[in-house]
């Protein structure tokens, strides 16, 4: 964009919905961005195929009224985001337009707004000094963004090593002020301000190495942390039929997860769900810092009624912002709801281009696109020895609830944690409807992570998790037998086994996302509860007949639920605990 002297121009030759054919008069790049001039309104579009002198472009906005012979200007670069302080707490659309800066109730096409603030002053503190040698992503200085240290870095596009010539002294500056001068290997001086740009479809690789994840990312959701833990820098996905609570679960994660920054990509989903975040996050406290949740959150909203082509861009935009903050040594949680809508956007386009379809009319390269995207997450050691991470959790909306469809299958190959939402659990209001047994976490088997558990939670934690899962499996098996043979067709012991599994289901797996206390459980509390339910499992109880078993365990469950509802280690909590101890004593075999 800077160096090219003459920009390529073109004219519209054909239109089918948001696919436009453009006759061009010069060179064009694949994925180059162009603007179509519709009587003064500039419609943004991306080149997705080139055939001779015709470029096929997908328009990010409605093409209503577009005519043959309208002019097109090419920009010479791919879809880029602008990186700099001011991204935090923003509400962007899929193309990084600041939604709050747009006028009027309705989105106007062709309206592009500045993602950052030109005039805002940031308090700058230098980190590098003259003579330091840095690479792309190297830290020159930092500004306070909300409460987070936002690093001003050597732009990611820079190749090779750079010697710092000067860094501006501490003070208040705008994003356009000169922050540093660096000298490249050929001795040329380059002036840097706080802004840089990066094409969203390419991964930012300004780090030294990406080890296997080895730490737990706390989410406060028991069925995840305790039974199917996700690692910091890990990937996971949540497939589920509609109505099983995908979005509620994602919102819970975004509220409670132990991360420095949360990026939510609302991709092709309901607008009201985004509004919920807009409305609640500025009010809700971040339990870890005591600040408002919105202060650590950035939202990329491309809801289902917004232009389809920008849906694809939105997930890439979100990932690129996450990579930018990861390079500052921060712990990022990226949530995308839902990756299926993104895949559908790809399908619509592939269909219009009359490509030969793969399964369910999705493009053939869908698995490759998905795994490539997931691979951008991860825990990284930066060149300066610090570390940063992106944990990515995407939802998948399988058509007809069928997990054998292409998007789910492709994602399963790419993501390491699988949180299966079950219709049956949702129907019986056992929320979160994660089926603890169908779900898995590959990380739970990592020796690195098991060591972490032993050291930080409980020396026997991995064994305890395995036992809890076994109890659930046995309980399920027994429940099937009871259904077949009848309550009195099986020994009383079977009922006992069934109900001990139910205790784990109700007390560990189920959690009330709408209750102020129960919505999030600290690791300490999770450890206490798991030990407690395992104690109950190990306790021998005496029962005369099967109907006593259910009645008794319902009391146990009821009391333990009240414990889950009570604030941890308060009088109320201990009161319930005492109550529970008494109930246990009633039938305990000495």
């Amino acid at each position, binding site marked *: 964009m800077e160096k090219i002297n003459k920009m390529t121009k073109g004219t519209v030759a*054909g239109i*089918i919905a948001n696919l436009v054919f453009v006759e061009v008069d010069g060179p064009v790049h694949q994925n180059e961005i162009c603007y179509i001039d519709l009587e003064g309104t500039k419609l943004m579009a991306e080149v997705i195929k080139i055939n001779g002198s015709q470029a096929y472009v997908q328009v990010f906005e409605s093409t209503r009224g577009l005519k043959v012979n309208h002019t097109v200007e090419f920009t010479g670069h791919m879809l880029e985001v602008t990186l700099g302080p001011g991204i935090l707490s923003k509400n962007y659309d899929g193309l990084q337009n600041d939604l709050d800066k747009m006028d*009027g109730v309705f989105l106007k096409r062709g309206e592009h707004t500045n993602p950052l603030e030109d005039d805002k002053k940031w308090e700058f503190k230098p980190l590098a000094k003259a003579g330091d040698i840095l690479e792309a992503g190297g830290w020159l200085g930092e500004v306070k963004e909300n409460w987070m240290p936002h690093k001003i870095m050597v732009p990611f596009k820079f190749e090779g090593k750079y010697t710092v010539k000067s860094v501006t002294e501490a003070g208040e500056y705008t994003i356009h002020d000169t922050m540093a001068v660096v000298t490249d290997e050929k001795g040329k001086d380059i002036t840097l301000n706080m802004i840089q740009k990066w094409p969203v479809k390419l991964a930012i690789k300004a780090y030294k190495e990406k080890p296997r994840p080895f730490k737990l990312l706390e989410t406060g959701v028991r069925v995840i942390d305790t039974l199917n833990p996700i690692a910091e820098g890990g990937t996971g996905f949540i497939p589920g039929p509609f109505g099983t609570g995908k979005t509620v679960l994602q919102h819970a994660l975004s509220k409670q997860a132990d991360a420095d920054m949360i990026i939510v990509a609302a991709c092709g989903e309901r607008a009201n769900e985004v509004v919920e975040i807009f409305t609640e996050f500025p009010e809700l406290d971040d339990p870890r810092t005591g600040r408002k949740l919105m202060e650590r959150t950035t939202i990329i909203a491309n809801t*289902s009624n917004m232009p389809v082509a920008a849906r694809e861009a939105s997930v890439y935009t979100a990932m690129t912002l996450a990579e930018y903050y990861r390079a500052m040594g921060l712990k990022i949680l990226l949530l995308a709801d839902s990756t299926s809508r993104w895949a*559908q956007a790809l399908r*619509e386009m592939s269909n219009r281009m009359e490509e030969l379809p793969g399964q369910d009319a999705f493009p053939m390269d869908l698995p490759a696109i998905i795994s490539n995207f997931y691979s951008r997450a991860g825990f990284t050691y930066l060149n300066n020895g610090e570390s940063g991470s992106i944990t990515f959790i995407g939802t998948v909306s399988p058509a007809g*609830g069928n997990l054998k469809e292409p998007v789910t299958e492709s994602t399963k190959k790419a993501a390491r944690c699988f949180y299966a939402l079950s219709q049956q659990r949702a129907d019986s209001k056992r929320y979160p409807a994660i089926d603890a047994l169908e779900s898995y976490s590959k990380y739970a088997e990592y020796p690195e992570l098991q060591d972490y558990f032993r050291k930080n939670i409980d020396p026997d934690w991995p064994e305890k998790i395995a036992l809890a899962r076994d109890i659930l499996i046995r309980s399920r098996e027994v429940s099937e037998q009871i259904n077949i043979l009848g309550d009195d067709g099986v020994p009383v012991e079977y009922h006992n086994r069934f109900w001990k599994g139910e205790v784990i289901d109700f007390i560990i797996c189920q959690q009330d996302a*709408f209750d102020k206390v129960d919505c999030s459980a600290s690791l300490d509390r999770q450890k206490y509860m798991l030990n407690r339910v395992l104690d109950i499992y190990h306790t021998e109880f005496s029962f005369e007949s099967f*109907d006593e078993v259910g009645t008794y365990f319902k009391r146990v469950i009821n009391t333990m639920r009240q414990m889950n509802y009570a604030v941890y280690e308060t009088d109320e909590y201990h009161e319930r605990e005492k109550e529970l101890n008494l109930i246990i004593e009633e039938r305990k075999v000495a």
Partner: protein
Amino acid sequence: METKAFQKIYTKITQITKATCSLKATGIGYEEMAIVHGRLAQVVKIMGEDVTLQIFSGTEGIPTNAEVVFLGRPPVVKVGDELSGRFFDAYGDPIDGRPAIEGEERQIGGPSVNPVRRKQPSEFIPTGIAGIDLNNALVTGQKIPFFADPDQPYNEVMANVALRADADKIILGGMGLTNDDYLYYKNVFENAGALDRIISFVNTTENPPVERILVPDMALTAAEYFAVDKKQKVLVLLTDMTLYADALSIVSNRMDQIPSKDSMPGSLYSDLAKIYEKAVQFPDGGSITIIAVTTLSGGDITHAIPDNTGYITEGQLFLRKDTDIGKVVVDPFRSLSRLKQLVIGTKTRADHPQVMNAAIRLYADAANAKTKQENGFDLTDYDERTLNFAKDYSTKLLAIDVNVEVDQMLETSWDLFGEHFSKVEVGIKQEFVDKHWPNENEVK
């Protein structure tokens, strides 16, 4: 965008299919309207000079030398206060024998609302039907369909909901309504004396199916006029969205597009989302609430139409015939209102969420007991009690002929809990039990 007095007339059609025709023309805008042989058409594809038009009423009898006039504008609807009480066809022309209205022309299918300009829905819409208010409370700005088999009384329930709901305007978008159903709606609205706040855009089975595609956009553009310009609370009824989607598949098929699941167009999700996402709550009080009907075939919700709908809408309502009590009920298991959390327990009594969940859980236990019974096993005392509870719960609360206030629904629930269960079995937070548990049945 006024139509010009002098317009170029084209008379050479190069290609005709069942739904489209093509001709050579220049200076044509995408999605522009045209009149082909007296029939309304819309530009769906432009390749150089070749323009393809979709003819809404079909191409039967169109000659290759038919007159084609381009209108120079996308489809529009006339909006204004005079819309009230009127019945229109899919093009916005009156079908009630009264003169056309004089109003401002608005493009249909306009842009979407900026998400940051929306307000979180928070106003409860009571309907008096406990299966809805108690278990699946509706909220202004919500979009929710009835998933129903064709033999179920969804039109009756929807008309009831519409008339009881506190709305300034009710806009009916009828797609493929049978003439009988159309007359039913007309009668109900007239008898309720509510005609002055009702506007209808109707495509009946007697009209060509492709015309249906225009109906939701017509209805919703009119709705936006009242919600944005007049700050009114608008309720939009769309029936039947399955027939709308069928019309989309006809068009996409005729345009040689590769079908995806269930022969539906690959863009079905986006097409439906564009309609349903018009539901909105504005900060200044105006709102659009959409209640739709999606008919199922044999209760199959995995079909592409209900499936995509379910991912877009904020829940769904299922009707089911409860053979034990011989009434139609709102199915508590499969129905869901996603926005209910925004109002229950805050706009309604604080015990509402817990009472709702407890009742449904006990009802689920009853379903298990019933399976047991059918398989010939002995029932426990608890099983018997759940079955009795289920019968009462269905009759007194779930049946669609119930019409009471929410507080009464909650009281009825507590009475049923007290009558059939112990406090532990109900498992509700202690503070609510202390406050609401019925006295006489203390020990059970």
